[in-house]
């Protein structure tokens, strides 16, 4: 088709395509700051206690480059399939703002540490490459706290602790075509950073931040209509919602004959909308120039190959191994490997469970473990806002509980209750079972008494069963389970009922 834009003949409505590019800033997990030796542990300390002449921008100081921050950035770049140039340098990005102590940020302009990479996202089984323009290193700014006096006068407080934290910037190509693709990109990128151990990836705490560029254009056209930059999104969900809102807003503007203004908009989470932010008229006059205080970087090919060889297993490789090694479904393997702590937890459980059993039933055990981790465990972690590493339940707790179920001490249905108690108290499954008298009853004599009572009370179900209605058996078993408060062994109960009623 040669048409510049594709019009739906029936409705007369122009079909648009969405174009999204993301810019992620991630703090690095170094122990000291980017250009000085102040502690990087700024979050848990009182304001302005991790500050020195370098990070507060006093005249006459000399910044020096944190070696580990550079290594972390090279690792990330290689994991994102970027190429590392022979030379890189730092530049000053000049702009005045009270959170920028020196009046400039030491960043990288025309010779970044890496360029031209990609990351693969999986959209319901379809793989798509999203280009990475560059990964470079810069520094974070101070934190501003806004306050108002009782008289209604507002002012700001400056805390310099965060200033000079190493900040890695990852810029994508505008290769994403929906809010969902953007979300998948962020999930994947975060998990890669977590696997590398270079970032916590915590968006809510601000150590992993995302700005988005979004524009729409008539499908098939290459023209760029006004590009909008969206900021202030502090969760994956917020990014998704903000892009969804912006996509719709831009369509409506174009459909009603308007024009998209190139601008920066801020996401207002409570209202679920983006609002135009007053643009600083000189915002793009950064007057970059080479940082005279920092000698350039040279990356030998040997150094690059050493870093590449030392990269840990990345999510994709782990995913493949989970699918082929443990016969997990691609869906489950994907969920487990999205988070490195969850994937590690899973493997620890499988390792422990594997010791008490043959290689043969490892797939079965892996499936059970995966079901618990992705089901009840994840639900409890989410509802109590607990990270898996900080949970009361350690892998061996979980494996011990599975053993109780395997050995018939604990019934499947009661395991759920026991697990919840383990989760809140940190007790072992056997302790909970003993304390609350939840040992499964498998003794035929004991169960026969309950079965007799249920048979006596349920004439209709018995008649139905004898008339060939199989569902009645399930009902009767359920009644016995209920009467035993979940403790009866369902398999034994079934056998007793069938024997007593003379079925097959």
């Amino acid at each position, binding site marked *: 088709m040669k048409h510049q834009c594709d019009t739906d003949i029936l409705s007369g409505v122009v079909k648009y395509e969405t174009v999204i590019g993301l810019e992620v800033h991630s703090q690095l997990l170094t122990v000291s700051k980017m250009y000085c*030796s102040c502690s990087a542990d700024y979050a848990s300390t009182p304001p302005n206690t991790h500050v*020195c002449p370098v990070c507060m921008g006093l005249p006459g100081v000399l910044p020096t480059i944190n*070696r580990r921050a550079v290594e972390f950035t090279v690792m990330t770049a290689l994991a994102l399939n970027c190429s590392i140039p022979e030379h890189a*340098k730092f530049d000053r990005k000049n702009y005045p703002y009270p959170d920028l102590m020196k009046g400039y940020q030491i960043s990288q302009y025309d010779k970044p540490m890496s360029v031209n990479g990609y990351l693969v996202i999986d959209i319901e089984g379809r793989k798509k490459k999203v280009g990475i323009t560059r990964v470079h290193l810069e520094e974070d700014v101070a934190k501003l706290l806004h306050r108002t006096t009782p008289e209604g006068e507002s*002012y700001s*407080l*400056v805390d310099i602790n965060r200033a000079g934290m190493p900040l890695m910037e990852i810029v994508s190509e505008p290769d994403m075509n929906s809010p969902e693709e953007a979300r998948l990109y962020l999930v994947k990128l975060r998990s890669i950073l977590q696997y590398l151990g270079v970032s916590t990836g915590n968006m809510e705490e601000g150590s992993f931040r995302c700005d988005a560029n979004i524009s729409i254009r008539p499908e098939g056209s290459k023209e760029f209509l006004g590009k909008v930059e969206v900021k202030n999104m502090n969760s994956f969900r917020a990014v998704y919602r903000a892009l969804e809102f912006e996509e719709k807003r831009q369509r409506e503007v174009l459909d009603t004959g308007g024009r998209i203004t190139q601008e920066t908009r801020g996401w207002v989470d409570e209202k679920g909308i983006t609002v135009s932010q*007053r643009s600083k008229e*000189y915002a793009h006059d950064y007057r970059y120039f080479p940082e*005279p205080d920092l000698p350039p970087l040279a990356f030998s090919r040997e150094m690059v190959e050493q870093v590449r060889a030392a990269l840990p297993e990345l999510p994709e490789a782990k995913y493949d191994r989970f699918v082929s090694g443990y016969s997990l479904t691609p869906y489950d393997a994907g969920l487990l490997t999205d988070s490195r702590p969850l994937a590690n937890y899973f493997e620890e459980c499988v390792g422990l469970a594997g010791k008490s059993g043959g290689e043969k039933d490892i797939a079965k055990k892996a499936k059970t473990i995966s079901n618990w981790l992705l089901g009840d465990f994840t639900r409890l972690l989410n509802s109590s806002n607990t990270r898996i590493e900080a949970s009361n339940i350690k892998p061996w707790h979980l494996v011990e509980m599975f053993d109780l179920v395997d050995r018939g001490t604990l019934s499947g249905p009661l395991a759920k209750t026991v697990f919840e108690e383990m989760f809140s108290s940190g007790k072992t499954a056997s302790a909970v079972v003993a304390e609350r008298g939840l040992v499964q009853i498998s003794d035929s004599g004991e169960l026969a008494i309950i079965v007799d009572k249920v048979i006596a009370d349920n004439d209709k179900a018995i008649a139905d069963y004898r008339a060939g209605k199989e569902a009645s058996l399930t009902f009767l078993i359920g009644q016995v389970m209920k009467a035993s408060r979940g403790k009866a062994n369902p398999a034994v109960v079934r056998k007793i009922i069938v024997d007593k009623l003379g079925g097959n």
Partner: protein
Amino acid sequence: MQLTDEEVRHIALLARLGISDAEVEKFRNQLSSILENMDILQQVDTSGLEPTSQSVALENIYREDETGPSLPVTEVLSNAPAQEDNSLKVNAVLE
């Protein structure tokens, strides 16, 4: 190269300097003569030379990722015109 008044005012704004009309003219002349000196430097034949952004022949100067002492808060805030809760107090900052 001669700067215009507009360019001088723009540079002053970027540097957050308030300057009078008389100063605009004064700095316009001074800055223009600096640029004229740059024009002279531009005449040097640099073909065949690698561009450089540095005047010292150093590269890969790193600091190990180790922590060192920071300043006491009292010193950090000693030049602050106003302070509150261990922080520098400044005029309201709007996004």
